[in-house]
């Protein structure tokens, strides 16, 4: 029996582990893959207070070690569901069942896919969701980026320095990303904007060869590319809890600023909850709040 079980070992979950351990609670962190969360894809974090530059890997590793050194137990198992029978919570993983007084969900989000039929088969064969990981494979080749937010814009900028040609495909006429990034993009000669357009088909043999792009006025064109970087946003990892916990229409776990869900004793921290600003600093902030609330909840139980 644990005081607190935390689901997810990203910045929110590991920060919650630090706070609950410092409150001397018995804490278990469950992680489906590896610790760190999506921040490990970031080469250089420049907006975390008091850290002018730190890599996502270094940040995640320091945070992991901090939680571990404080005595948090971290186990690598995927959570399938939670059951709440009054004061006691059961957390069911692929391998075990754990019991806890309270639960903090910090599962984050995953890449949104285009939803095209052969997309999954082409991951690693021309389709990528991480420009900083895979951009270097496309030296002097032709690539496209899909999306209109900051990630898409930054991916296009990064790829423009590596690839011969970058098409930036966006379904609207305006980008959601920051203006400063948009103007930097306009200064790159090898970036071509393909606006008001959607990717409708992936043409591939053994690997991706071209994409079909349809514009909103009905014109369809084929663009030959070697790589397609998908940056159309993220979707919350909340399916496992949908039977118990209230989600909004987009699948985010409904929560207030105190990180409470609709179930007593179950809290949510980080990108998987409803909120406006999803940043590293708000994830860690959520971790602290959810942990404090969880500790309060357990103290009131006894």
């Amino acid at each position, binding site marked *: 029996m644990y005081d607190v079980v935390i689901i997810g070992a990203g910045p929110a979950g590991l920060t919650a582990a630090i706070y609950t351990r410092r409150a001397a609670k018995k804490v278990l962190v469950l992680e489906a893959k*590896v610790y760190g969360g999506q921040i*490990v894809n970031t080469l250089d974090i420049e907006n975390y207070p008091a850290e002018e530059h730190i890599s996502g*890997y270094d940040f995640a590793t320091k945070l992991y070690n901090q939680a571990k050194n404080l005595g948090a137990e971290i186990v*690598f198992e995927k959570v399938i569901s939670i059951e709440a029978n009054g004061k006691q919570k059961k957390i069911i993983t692929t391998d075990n069942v754990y019991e806890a007084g309270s639960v903090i969900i910090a599962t984050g989000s995953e890449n949104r896919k285009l939803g095209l039929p052969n997309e999954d088969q082409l991951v*690693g064969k021309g389709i990528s969701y*991480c420009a900083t*990981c*895979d951009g270097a494979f496309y030296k002097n080749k032709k690539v496209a980026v899909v999306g209109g937010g900051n990630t898409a814009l930054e991916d296009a900028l990064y790829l423009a320095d590596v690839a011969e040609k970058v098409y930036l495909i966006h379904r609207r006429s305006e980008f959601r990303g920051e203006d400063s990034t948009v103007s930097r993009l306009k200064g790159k000669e090898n970036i071509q904007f393909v606006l008001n357009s959607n990717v409708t088909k992936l043409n591939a043999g053994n690997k991706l060869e071209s994409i079909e792009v349809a514009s909103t006025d009905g014109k369809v064109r084929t663009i030959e590319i070697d790589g397609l970087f998908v940056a159309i946003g993220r979707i919350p990892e909340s399916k496992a809890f949908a039977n118990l916990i209230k989600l909004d229409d987009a699948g985010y776990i409904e929560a207030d600023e105190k990180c409470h869900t609709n179930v007593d004793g179950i809290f949510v921290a980080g990108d998987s909850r409803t909120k406006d600003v999803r940043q590293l600093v708000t994830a860690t902030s959520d971790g602290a709040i959810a942990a404090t609330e969880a500790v309060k909840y357990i103290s009131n139980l006894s």
Partner: protein
Amino acid sequence: MKIVEVNQENFEEEVLKSDKKVLADFYADWCGPCKMIRPVIEEIADNNDAVKFVSVNIENEEELAEKYSVSSIPCLVIFENGEEIKRNVGLISKNDIEKMIGK
């Protein structure tokens, strides 16, 4: 057991002609997720003598990456008797790596 860094020159000897099954970790130094997976592979390698563990730095070994169509990392490829038998692209848990190599 140590992870052996392999290159174009010794790939055939170390991987294709290996008596044991081989797990090849295609990685690069700039790739965060690759760095996350490495200690997990090391942990598995420490407790598994039946499989040989090698790593391929795709920045130095562009030809190997090209030959095995690696265009997204981290990429783990299992070789047996000189043939690729399994592949995983992207982050993967320790349990799933163990399943891949047939624990």
